[in-house]
């Protein structure tokens, strides 16, 4: 086993074995109670429904129903027109809004940067799997920022990237001019995305390592014996064997970029400068809470959901294709 301790301890097999002992103990403790009456039996029949009821009710009422409600809202008006149907009015306004256009352009930028955000943890996981000296240490350190809140990460980088902050002080000492990292509309979005990748690559790394744990080590040994170089091993052994993991990381990284950058945006730039760091989720929050335009926000929510649906469907397509190849 190449990297023994990435094996999930959430492992049913061993639990099953432990279960045998627990059951006998439990049976002894509770004692046998054979004489159950009919009423008890009927109550038992509904037991599964009672057990799933809290989860199902909460998910239906506070997840699925709001989704329909939101789509419905997006076709009604705001303010004086509250509740009246306005057709696609909100959507027309949305796509004409320069801030939303910027948000969509920034989504495009995220898509372009996606391969980088996947390749970095993939490459690092490969090195860790191949047991670079100190691989355990790297894994622990790299994963750490992934458990920190975007708010904390954003606040720390606010400090580091401030115009009169430490990074510019370092640049100044080597004679480079200060850069307004978070105040320049051409730079700010790259900084926010960069910080997001810095903070989350450890998450993808762990997923990659879990994929590596399922890899047949004999394949690698065979390649080694045949004198394959590292690049050949990566291209011809690792990537084909991990195609599913790679797809999973692509999708989860994209979803992460679309739905977990709010904290960074809120703390680092608040959408500025000049609205250059808007993303759909920030636009939704702004319209909902600050501008009091819930219907317009709902239209943006629906668009965001459709973007995510496309990402999800693409994943299914890819899975089907790789299934045929198998």
């Amino acid at each position, binding site marked *: 086993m190449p990297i023994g301790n990435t094996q999930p301890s959430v492992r049913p097999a061993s*639990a099953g074995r432990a*279960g045998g002992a627990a059951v006998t103990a439990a049976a002894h403790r509770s004692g046998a109670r054979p004489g159950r009456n009919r009423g008890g039996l009927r109550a038992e029949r509904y037991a599964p429904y009672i057990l799933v009821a809290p989860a199902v009710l*909460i998910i239906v009422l506070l997840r699925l129903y709001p989704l329909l409600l939101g789509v419905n809202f997006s076709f009604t008006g705001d303010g004086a027109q509250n509740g009246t149907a306005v057709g696609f009015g909100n959507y027309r306004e949305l796509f004409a809004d320069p801030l939303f256009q910027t948000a969509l352009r920034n989504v495009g930028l995220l898509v372009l940067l996606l391969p980088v955000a996947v390749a970095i943890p993939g490459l690092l996981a490969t090195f860790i799997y191949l047991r670079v000296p100190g691989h355990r240490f790297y894994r622990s350190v790299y994963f750490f920022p992934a458990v920190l*809140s975007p*708010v904390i990460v954003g606040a720390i980088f606010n400090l580091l990237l401030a115009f009169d902050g430490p990074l510019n002080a370092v640049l100044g000492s080597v004679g480079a001019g200060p850069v307004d990292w978070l105040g320049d509309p051409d730079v700010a979005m790259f900084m926010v995305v960069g910080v997001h990748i*810095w903070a989350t690559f450890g998450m993808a790394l762990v997923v990659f390592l879990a994929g590596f744990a399922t890899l047949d080590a004999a394949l690698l040994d065979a390649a080694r014996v045949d004198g394959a170089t590292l690049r050949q091993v990566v291209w011809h052994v690792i990537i084909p064997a991990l195609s599913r993991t790679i797809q999973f990381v692509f999708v989860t990284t994209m979803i992460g970029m679309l739905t977990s950058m709010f904290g960074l945006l809120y703390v680092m730039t608040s959408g500025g400068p000049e609205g250059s760091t808007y993303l759909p989720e920030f636009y939704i929050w702004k319209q909902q809470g600050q501008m009091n335009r819930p219907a317009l*926000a709902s239209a943006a929510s629906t668009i965001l959901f459709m973007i995510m649906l496309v990402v999800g469907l693409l994943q299914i397509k890819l899975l089907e294709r790789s299934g045929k190849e198998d």
Partner: protein
Amino acid sequence: MSRLRLGRWLIAIPMSLLALATIYPLLFTANVAMKTRRDYILDRFGLTDALRLENISAAWTSVGMGRYFVNSLFVVTVSVLLLLLFGSMAGFALSQLRFRGSSALFLGCLAGLFIPFQVIMVPLARIMADTALIDTYPGLILVYVAQFLPFTVFLMTSYYKGIPPEIVDAARIDGSTVYGVYRRIMLPLGTPALLSVGILNALFCWNDVLMALVMMPSADHRTLMIGVTSLRGQYSDNIPTFASGVLIAAIPVLLVYLFLQRQIADGVAAGSTKG
């Protein structure tokens, strides 16, 4: 073979630099939190001359981080306990019991996985306002439970699927009720999964900012992360206090990480491989 070994050492150099880049920002913040305001302005990078805790205690009391800390601790604890209770109940029923409609209910729960909070933020805020739950702790707890329940149900169901059905059958023959099986067998057997899922949920809830921002407008009810965001405007000219506030919010996560790193990584890995 020796060339390969040399290559490994060469790769270790950029990897070490990256490791440094990964932890340095937090070390820098911790260092700044110990400095006086004057020290920071004079020298940003130098090590603090003393383990000064004044800034931290000031952030804890006068900035109100202490109160926000307690708020967060309460909300996260209740949310995680409810998530584990509801998640294990549903997971047990959906994996071990045969009943009409079980696969449809499982798919319904799974569908919740694909609906992020951003997409339902507006209607959810309206539902919470209509039921007078907005700006209350039960309201925020309910939103957290709804947010992370699909994931919890999914993981608990796939974990309990690995437990042989004979165990349940044997207990039933011995006269145990379904609830008895849940309480005396499924809960204890589920401990490793409950621990992993519980820690992950605790981190998710503790780290959240968007849901707390939408559901908890009042300053009294602020969670710790909202407290951190409010530091920026108030203390942007007093960097050591700012850094102290950030540190207060990061330390619990750091401690959890140091002691429970395995469980966190396992939870993430289980979520990816069970899919």
